[in-house]
């Protein structure tokens, strides 16, 4: 025996330290070429995605881990940055057909896109597994469907307790997870209002986490209602202050989905030229999120905010 103690092995917890950055700083620091990128849908991290697109000379190849995405992942796909997407849904919802996605899958424009299909719960359970340090999760969706037939990463086993078939999905642990939430303090305790989908799971599943928020608040404000903390500081690497940071999508209790914008964008996405023109104007034509908001118009964004608060405000019933 050499009487040398076992060296201290640190856990994965991020420190309770100052984490506020600009989107540019956060994307520059954490997202690299070849990144396996996880993206939340509720709320959509538009400000962060736009910044990735702005850095396309540096970040050329991404694989995406999503559950569902509505238009936002198409900003990356249409910008020629994505090789593969692991997903349940990539489409327009009320905005309709996603021509950017179709062009990529059907015609390889701007580049071929490999799709790995799951159900929504199947995708979510992949993050769930990773969020608990597990390598798989059992799930009873997808059984009997062609999702399993064509996706060899989903395994069907006989449940060791009941003997009945059950599907297993492999953990998905993105290199970086990006998400948009209501508010955070400077050390990265993040709170959400209303539904947040699987943002909680994505933050826990990802190796690095960038959160954009509507508001930066004091730690005392976080402590007022610690039950609202959806992502504690130890998961978070960077907090980006991005008011209206989910536009054209919604941010619960802050502002509503800008359907008029979304439908117009989708109309432009119908052709590659249309998409490029849209991206040139709204993403490359603006140097940061504030400039994007100015281009869209803060008057317009404020109208969306007022419309939302007519119907609901967190802490009140309207």
């Amino acid at each position, binding site marked *: 025996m050499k009487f040398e103690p076992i060296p201290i092995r640190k856990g994965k917890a991020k420190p309770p330290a100052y984490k506020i950055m600009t989107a540019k700083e956060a994307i520059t620091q954490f997202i690299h070429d070849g990144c396996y990128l996880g993206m939340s849908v509720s709320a959509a991290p538009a400000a962060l995605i736009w910044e990735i697109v702005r850095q396309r000379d540096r970040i050329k190849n991404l694989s995406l881990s999503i559950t569902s995405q*509505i238009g936002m992942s198409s900003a990356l796909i249409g910008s020629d940055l994505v090789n593969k997407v692991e997903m349940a849904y990539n489409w327009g919802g009320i905005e309709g057909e996603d021509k950017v996605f179709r062009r990529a899958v059907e015609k390889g424009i701007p580049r071929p896109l490999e799709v790995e299909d799951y159900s929504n719960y199947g995708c979510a359970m992949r993050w*769930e597994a990773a969020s608990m340090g597990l390598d798989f999760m059992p799930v009873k*969706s997808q059984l009997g*469907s062609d999702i399993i037939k064509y996706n060899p990463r989903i395994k069907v086993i006989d449940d060791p307790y009941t003997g009945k078939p*059950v599907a297993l999905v492999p953990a998905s642990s993105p290199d970086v997870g990006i998400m948009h939430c209501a508010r955070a303090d400077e050390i990265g305790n993040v709170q959400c209002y209303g539904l947040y*989908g*699987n943002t909680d799971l994505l933050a826990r599943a990802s190796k690095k986490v960038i959160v954009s928020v509507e508001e930066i608040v004091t730690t005392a404000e976080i402590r007022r209602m610690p039950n609202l903390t959806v992502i504690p500081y130890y998961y978070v690497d960077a907090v980006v202050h991005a008011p209206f940071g989910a536009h054209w999508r919604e941010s*619960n209790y802050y502002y509503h989905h800008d359907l008029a914008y979304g439908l117009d964008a989708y109309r432009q996405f119908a052709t590659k030229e249309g998409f490029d023109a849209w991206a040139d104007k709204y993403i490359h034509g603006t140097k940061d999120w504030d400039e994007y908001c100015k281009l869209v118009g803060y008057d317009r964004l404020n109208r969306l905010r007022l419309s939302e608060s007519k119907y609901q405000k967190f802490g009140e019933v309207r």
Partner: protein
Amino acid sequence: MAEYAKDYSLPELMAASVAREINDGELCFIGVGMPLMAATIAKFTHAPNFNMMVEYGAVGPSPRRLPMCVDCAVNNERAYYTGSQREVMGAQQNGYVDAGCISGAQIDKYGNLNSTGIGEYPNLRVRLAGSGGANDIASSASRTIIMMRQDGRNFVNKLDYITSPGHLDGPGAREKAGLVGGGPHVVVTTMGVYRFDNETREMYLEKIHPGVKLEDIKRSIQWDLAVSPNLIETEPPTVEQVMVMRTLDPLKVYLGNGREVLAGDFEAFMKMFEDSYWPMTELMKSKGM
């Protein structure tokens, strides 16, 4: 008795028919698109104690605006619970959901649905949205309510891809596959209303929409469609149902060409939202919601 509307469109008939499949007091999982609209109609008319679950984590909202997506801010409005997808999808897999409401691009006689693509997977001629939560609803809801366009090409003998399991290849197949939900219960289309026979699990025509001919329905379906000996005409929407639809969706975003109208017209969009607040709030109060 409810008063029927004299003036209504085919999409309105369809939405009203789907709304009627939802019973008061039920808990239903509502998928993206028209199902959200139909569920909202049900809530504000005959089923104020019906509660919807939407897949990004809300339970029991009373949307007084056009619900646009399953992750839409509208889904928080007056909800009992908001939070995680894990909660609502876990509850569904745990058997708590009475019914789920979904749609698809192709359907076969067992109610299996394709929303992934047309062609040979993965080399699809037409790539579609993918499952989203549809497979999960189809797998685990106690019954599913399906909404479909019926366009002459999408009621097929064999799906290009089974995204969402119906009764698979017939009686006992779901149980054998390990699925916990009951599978398809009804299909509401642009032409009629179909149910599934308890013995054979095959779809049959139960109701035909006013003005639609049976031979046109049969021609639009690849297999030899079974038709109920008690075939009846679909009940028209009520005045109240139509009022709700037109208040929420005056520009026919769901129920017509409203998307073309709204694309880029922010003022029209804002007006639609601003105008629906008072009538929907009054209706809500009158229902004791």
